[in-house]
């Protein structure tokens, strides 16, 4: 083995001593910029000495070869364990041949000094060629800096070759840079909010600071036909990036020194230590790891916004397809907003003084999947201080928020609102989870991003090709109030920002505050709170035996209604999916589904468990507190209703039904009609009689109404409470207020036998042409005699069509069946109707079931 030369020994000890000195200086000052500058200078010194020893005694010689710093070294940012990017530049092939041995020796000595070299050898002509498979090399030239050798050769590269190359290839360069950036972001799940981020490569990291500078520089060279004199970034952007760089440089130096290698992952241990040492935040008071990470995320957010905007603003960076889509989107311009190249601009810059315009802006964004232009973001930032004085709140804010939550790109709009600090201004409760790192072995993202991802995964169900996504997507389409599910997802983990025993309890408190602010209706509030309170319930039940009927029954009873069960299944699915990209395995999706259908079937097959008004339970206690004066009437009214009646109606609704029942002595048919968010709701309270439900369904059909859902219940005294949700196919009620009263009267007179229902139905039939069904649904009739001790259950699945419910109910009555309970539902073009039947006060006998089935098949055949 050959002994090292005296120079190498000298360089080795100088490298070791100086590196230790730089480390000590960093430990005492925490100044990352100074550390990288000192390291750059130290390496330059070593290179110079080696160059003079091996290549040329004169550092500015020999001719036809130059040593050029590129990449991070070219920028003068050499981190303690970073690669040293070097370019050996030759005038021509002969020069390359002539200097092959000295270059090899030079590189070898650097390796022997344990310096990590990333060398490239190119002739001037090779530097002038752009290789689309190696965009990185051309980009690294943008940071080139002369070190040693032929200075004129370097000048040719810097002053002529690079500007011409950039001008000639600017479009390809921008596209290439955009592509590698998007690929890199995709590797990090397109989000900066990782619990353990890589501060070099992750979105918003150091690499993105460079991308921002390169994008601006390429555009500037293309425009000026030369290198710009100063940074091409706008002053406020530059200021933000410089602040981010100060922080990120210190943090990366800290990581390199701590690991003794080029490891840029901010793992939990490193976060604790960085916070304790206040790395990059020397002026801060005491910092917890979560506080320190918030500072990191704040800088990363600014960097990512800048890069995203620059990528969006530079049309050359777009692919042809992307450009086509953006050009189509330009047609979306409205009176408030204009859309140019996929970016939203304000038609009137001063319009944001009106908070409604601001809220409409994010609704517009969420609806169309557009991005905000830099100018619009600037205007929003300017408008925020005035808005902070009297922020919008109450029902109006909730209205805008729910409309935004329902749009397909809601998560992107929420992220943009959050990034601009608007979301936390409107809902300060979300400050608790802003960039919050909560450490566990499953979550990969901060709590705020986890919540946005959960909302996003719900919206993506509709377009997904995955079998499970499609199955759950079907459930989403059936929800009556999907906005409540989205609000629950937004707030479900807010309690994680409060140190307490149970984050669920804390989230409920926070959600209550947020819903006070939004003035959410009590019924809707109860649904959101139910979802938050139970958001871990399904996962907990999955740890038990979900094939055991007792487990399913206990879970289903906790859910109470099919609607709540459906929402919780979706919330669980979205919540697991947003934990990390691998968290929702098909195995888990199947388990959640299995539990869902088990519980759904249980709820439909146990609907006739009866209420006993003497029993003490929470809901009955609340009802008693609302009706102390009329407690005996109340008791008589409730006795014998199915438990399901109390689950699907709020206490206030039950009290209203009681009031209507009270009036039956005066008017034997009590009808209430109201308009809901999605459909109209008719409530009927009257005494039970044969053909009642069939007649009610018939009168709605005669008016052309389409029954979507219905619940029909009766108590021990024979008082019936039927609620029917329907859509107004001909907009009769919507366009003619006077028709409301006529419709109510019509229902009453038909039920009292004063009007001829058959004639009304014939008239309707004549005026309607038969619509062709888009999806063919096969009729299925299923009897279940085991699920109820008092009734026989029949479930009818059939093609939805006008008058269907009237025909089924009439057929059942013709067959001398009494409808004890009816649960009517519609899924797309499929009607799913469940009836609990008795005959002569008893279950149906087997022969009777066969007759009923035959009659139903006959009735529903064909058409």
């Amino acid at each position, binding site marked *: 083995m050959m002994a090292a030369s005296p120079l190498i020994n000298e360089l080795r000890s100088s490298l070791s001593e100086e590196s230790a000195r730089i480390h000590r200086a960093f430990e005492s000052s925490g100044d990352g910029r100074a550390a990288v500058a000192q390291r750059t200078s130290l390496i330059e010194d070593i290179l110079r000495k080696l160059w003079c020893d091996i290549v040329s005694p004169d550092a500015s010689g020999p001719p036809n070869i130059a040593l050029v710093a590129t990449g991070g070294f070219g920028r003068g940012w050499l981190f303690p364990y970073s690669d040293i990017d070097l370019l050996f530049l030759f005038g021509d092939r002969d020069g390359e041949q002539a200097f092959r041995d000295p270059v090899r020796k030079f590189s070898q000595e650097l390796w022997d000094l344990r310096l990590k070299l990333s060398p490239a050898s190119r002739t001037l002509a090779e530097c002038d060629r752009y290789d689309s498979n190696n965009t990185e090399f051309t980009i690294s030239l943008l940071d080139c800096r002369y070190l040693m050798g032929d200075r004129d050769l370097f000048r040719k590269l810097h002053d002529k070759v690079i500007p011409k190359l950039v001008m000639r290839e600017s479009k390809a360069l921008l596209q290439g840079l955009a592509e590698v950036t998007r690929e890199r972001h995709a590797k990090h799940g397109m989000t900066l909010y990782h619990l353990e981020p890589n501060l070099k490569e992750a979105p918003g990291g150091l690499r993105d600071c460079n991308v921002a500078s390169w994008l601006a520089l390429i555009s500037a060279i293309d425009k000026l036909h030369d290198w710009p004199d100063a940074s091409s970034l706008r002053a406020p952007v530059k200021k933000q990036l410089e602040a981010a760089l100060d922080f990120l440089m210190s943090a990366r130096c800290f990581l390199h020194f701590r690991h003794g290698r080029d490891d840029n992952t901010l793992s939990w241990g490193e976060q604790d230590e960085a916070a304790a040492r206040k790395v990059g935040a020397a002026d801060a008071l005491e910092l917890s790891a979560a506080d320190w990470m918030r500072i990191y995320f704040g800088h990363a957010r600014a960097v990512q916004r800048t890069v995203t905007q620059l990528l969006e603003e530079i049309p050359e960076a777009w692919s042809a397809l992307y450009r086509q889509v953006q050009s189509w989107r330009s047609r979306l311009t409205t009176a408030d907003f204009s859309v140019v190249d996929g970016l939203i601009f304000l038609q009137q810059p001063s319009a944001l003084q009106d908070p409604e315009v601001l809220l409409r802006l994010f609704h517009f964004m969420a609806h169309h999947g557009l991005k905000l232009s830099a100018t619009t973001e600037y205007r929003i930032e300017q408008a925020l201080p005035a808005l902070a004085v009297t922020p919008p709140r109450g029902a109006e804010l909730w209205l805008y928020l729910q409309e935004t939550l329902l749009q397909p790109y809601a998560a992107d709009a929420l992220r943009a609102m959050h990034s601009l600090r608007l979301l936390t201004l409107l809902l300060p409760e979300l400050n608790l989870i802003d960039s919050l790192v909560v450490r566990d072995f499953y979550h990969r993202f901060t709590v705020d991003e986890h919540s946005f991802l959960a909302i996003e995964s719900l919206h993506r169900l509709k377009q997904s090709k995955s079998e499970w996504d499609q199955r759950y997507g079907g459930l989403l389409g059936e929800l009556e109030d999907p906005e409540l599910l989205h609000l629950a997802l937004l707030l479900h983990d807010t309690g994680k920002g409060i140190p307490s025993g149970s984050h669920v309890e804390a989230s409920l408190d926070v959600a209550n505050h947020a819903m006070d602010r939004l003035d959410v209706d009590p019924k809707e509030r109860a649904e959101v709170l139910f979802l938050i309170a139970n958001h871990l319930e399904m996962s907990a039940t999955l740890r038990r*035996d*979900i*094939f055991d009927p007792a487990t399913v029954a206990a879970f289903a009873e906790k859910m109470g209604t099919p609607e709540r069960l459906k929402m919780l299944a979706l919330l669980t699915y979205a919540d697991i999916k947003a934990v990390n990209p691998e968290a929702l395995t098909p*195995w888990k999706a199947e388990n959640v589904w299995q539990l869902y*259908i088990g519980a759904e*079937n249980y709820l439909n097959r146990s609907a006739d468990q009866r209420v006993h008004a003497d029993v003490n339970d929470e809901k009955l206690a609340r009802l008693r507190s609302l009706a102390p004066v009329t407690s005996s009437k109340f008791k008589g009214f409730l006795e014998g209703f199915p438990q399901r009646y109390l689950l699907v109606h709020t206490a206030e609704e039950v009290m209203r039904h009681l009031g209507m029942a009270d009036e039956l002595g005066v008017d034997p048919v009590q009808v209430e009609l109201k308009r809901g968010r999605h459909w109209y709701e008719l409530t009927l309270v009257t005494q039970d009689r044969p053909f009642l439900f069939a007649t009610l369904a018939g009168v709605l059909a005669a008016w052309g109404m389409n029954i979507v859902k219905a619940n029909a219940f009766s108590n021990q005294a024979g008082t019936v409470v039927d609620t029917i949700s329907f859509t107004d196919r001909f907009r009769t009620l919507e366009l003619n207020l006077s028709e409301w009263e006529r419709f109510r009267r019509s229902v009453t007179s038909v039920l009292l036998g004063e009007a001829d229902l058959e004639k009304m139905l014939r008239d309707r039939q004549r005026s309607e042409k038969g619509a062709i069904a888009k999806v063919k*649904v096969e009729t299925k009739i299923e009897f279940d005699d085991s699920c109820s001790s008092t009734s026989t259950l029949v479930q009818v699945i059939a093609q939805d069509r006008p008058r269907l419910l009237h025909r089924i109910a009439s057929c059942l009555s013709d067959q001398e069946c009494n409808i004890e309970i009816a649960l009517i539902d519609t899924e797309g073009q499929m009607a799913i109707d469940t009836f609990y039947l008795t005959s002569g006060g008893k279950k149906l006998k087997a022969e009777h079931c066969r007759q009923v089935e035959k009659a139903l098949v006959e009735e529903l055949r064909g058409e």
Partner: protein
Amino acid sequence: MTKLEAVIQNSKLDAVKTALHEIGVEGMTVIEVRGHGRQKGHTEVYRGREYSVDLIPKTKIEMVLPDAMVEKAVQAVLGAARTGKIGDGKIFLSRMDEAIRIRNDERGEGAL
């Protein structure tokens, strides 16, 4: 050395883990699996559509044990996973030739 593989009900994982920890078994691999033995599957009807569960979701645990521990571990799994009903699962044992710790190339039972 012996490899112990046990297919158990999902609901029994926590109990089995605890029982194994109590006798000093700390490392194991847990795998989400589907399958059926005599339990077969079953069919549910959901909204008029048959939803067939022919392969039932189960949990599989795997561990390699020093021979002296095998019987104790088998008893721990049996005790924790048994309900007495069809579908409790099965335990499989097989001989292992070698175990190697990747970090330091340690071999044999010491690597377990």
